[in-house]
């Protein structure tokens, strides 16, 4: 009884903080300069990619390097349908196409385990990139496409709404039997299968849900770029960034990937403007250092430090 009141109090505080952040974020375009809105849109885009990556890869432990594929599918949906259909519909379709692609790919490959799955997802990005490149050059006779643009504030709000829906989805999945099943797959897949969990089906569905949001993010971001080509849409870096941001932030909690993505996007913006030639080099160094020294990410580090401090407090009193 005592514990439940404590958790519900904790839950209320979390909801209150969440509401304040949502109100702050929603009113940002009213009083901030245009640059802040653009930067925040980029941050939100990476948060969406990272959190949706964590939905699948966090609990199951399958490292997917396919985000760029799903993102690019969204980008191309926006380029193909942007002039015909209203934007929210285009975003929905972008997400759905990615969702279906992920269902197909997942059903084919999620029987593979460990490193084979990683290799496959990485190959998938390059396969789609090369195929679209070949198609555009030989069949349609162009390499790039023009995307209808909308203003920066609209992009920002669309991204914010996507982020809100994603966060709710991620939270509900974590709390559900579905989330528990995914976690048991990550801990011991054979044991999970023996308890009656249809492991391949659950992995495929989680993979597809995460792909939906990646596709939606791609469809939104395309409107900001005005011109796209396959190398922009299927940039492999977009596959690594979510992985790195999630590891850097820590995957144990929902807010870990959000913190990781925020810090990293800001860092990227800072490094690109100050050290354009060293940006990728510094990026690589941070990646290696984060993997070597931050196994549970920033959140894990803070939790460890906090534990040490609070334990000391109890020890002395």
């Amino acid at each position, binding site marked *: 009884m005592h514990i439940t009141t404590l958790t519900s109090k904790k839950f209320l505080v979390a909801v209150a903080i969440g509401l304040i952040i949502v109100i702050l974020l929603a009113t940002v375009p009213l009083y901030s300069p245009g640059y802040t809105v653009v930067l925040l849109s980029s941050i939100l885009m990476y948060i969406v990619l990272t959190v949706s990556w964590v939905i699948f890869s966090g609990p199951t*432990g399958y*490292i997917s390097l396919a985000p760029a594929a799903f993102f690019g599918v969204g980008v191309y949906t926006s380029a193909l349908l942007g002039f015909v259909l209203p934007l929210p519909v285009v975003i929905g379709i972008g997400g759905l196409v990615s969702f279906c692609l992920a269902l197909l790919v997942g059903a*084919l*490959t999620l029987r*593979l385990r*460990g*490193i*084979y799955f*990683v*290799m*496959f997802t*990485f*190959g*998938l990005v*390059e*396969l789609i990139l*090369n*195929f679209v*490149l*070949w198609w555009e*050059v*030989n069949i349609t006779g162009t390499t790039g496409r023009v995307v209808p643009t909308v203003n920066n504030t609209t992009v920002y709000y669309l991204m914010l709404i996507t982020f809100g829906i994603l966060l709710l989805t991620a939270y509900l999945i974590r709390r559900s039997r579905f989330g528990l099943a995914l976690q048991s797959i990550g801990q011991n897949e054979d044991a999970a299968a023996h308890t009656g969990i249809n492991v391949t089906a659950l992995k495929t569905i989680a993979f597809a849900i995460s792909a939906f949001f990646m596709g939606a993010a791609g469809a939104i971001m395309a409107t900001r770029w005005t011109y796209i080509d396959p190398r922009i849409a299927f940039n*492999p870096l977009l596959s*690594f960034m979510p*992985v*790195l941001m999630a*590891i850097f932030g820590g995957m144990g909690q929902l807010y870990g990937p959000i913190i990781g993505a925020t810090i990293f996007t800001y860092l990227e913006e800072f490094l690109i403007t100050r050290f354009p*030639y*060293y940006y*990728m*080099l510094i*990026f*690589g*160094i*941070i*990646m*290696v250092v984060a*993997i*070597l020294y931050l*196994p549970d990410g920033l959140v894990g580090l803070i939790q460890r430090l906090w534990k040490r401090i609070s334990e000391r407090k109890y020890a002395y009193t």
Partner: protein
Amino acid sequence: MIVTILDVVIAGLLMGGIYALVAVGLSLQYGVARVLNVAHGEFIMLGAFITWSLYTMAGINPLVSLIICGPTVFIIGFVLYRAVFTRLRTSSASPAAFEGNSMLACFGLLFIIQNVAILIWGADIKGYTFLAFPVNFWGAVFAANRLVTLVFALVIGAVFYLFLARTRLGKGIRAAAQDPGTAGLVGVNINQVLALCFGFGALMAGLGGTLISMSYKIQPTMGLEYTIIALIVIVLGGLGSIPGSFIGGFILGLVGSIVTYIEPGLALVAYYVIFILLLLARPTGILGK
């Protein structure tokens, strides 16, 4: 018609030799050291650029560069393993976790090596001419440097196979591949052997890079394509098997050359299709257990 077929087949075999050599290195790194080195292509690139620098600046024959490049890249690989992967191996909770973590660390290394190379050599495409006179095979004509490449790839592969099969260190490496724990019990210095393996893998990549630079254009971002090809070859041939890598390399070279003849833009796409079909049908490869 026969000349065309001969043309396609020989081009495929010449390309296959390089693919095989590159894949042997990766196979060793993943098969024994359990590091899926996605930065493998960057070591190829390093070998190619060191050779290019030595040839254009000091006039050193690329075949002599093999002796210089190999040890240089070997030391880089060995030190990297001791500095990064030994630590990761002990701190990772399980072998599976180590595979994931080490692969991600390799992605970091990929960015580091590639960008250091861009800072040193610039991002432009480079190349030099060496042994470029034509050789005629019953009507099909090829540059001599590509033939030299194939011969050296075969010789290096054979020497390495003998090293693994016949020497004491080779036996230690094979023991470590089968069961690292037991190999340690019978007196194999496991950290040393794994680091050596990673170094040998890098050495193969470096030698491959030197050979590639003799007949192809090079640039700092060339690595990833070779890494992907090497990955496909080792999955095709079976992990950890040197003859498998050679068979896989030649098959992929032939397929690439046939597809390029029919539709030039789709060679990479064809590789992926093979890769995907193979992963689904027989993930252990042709000679895998």
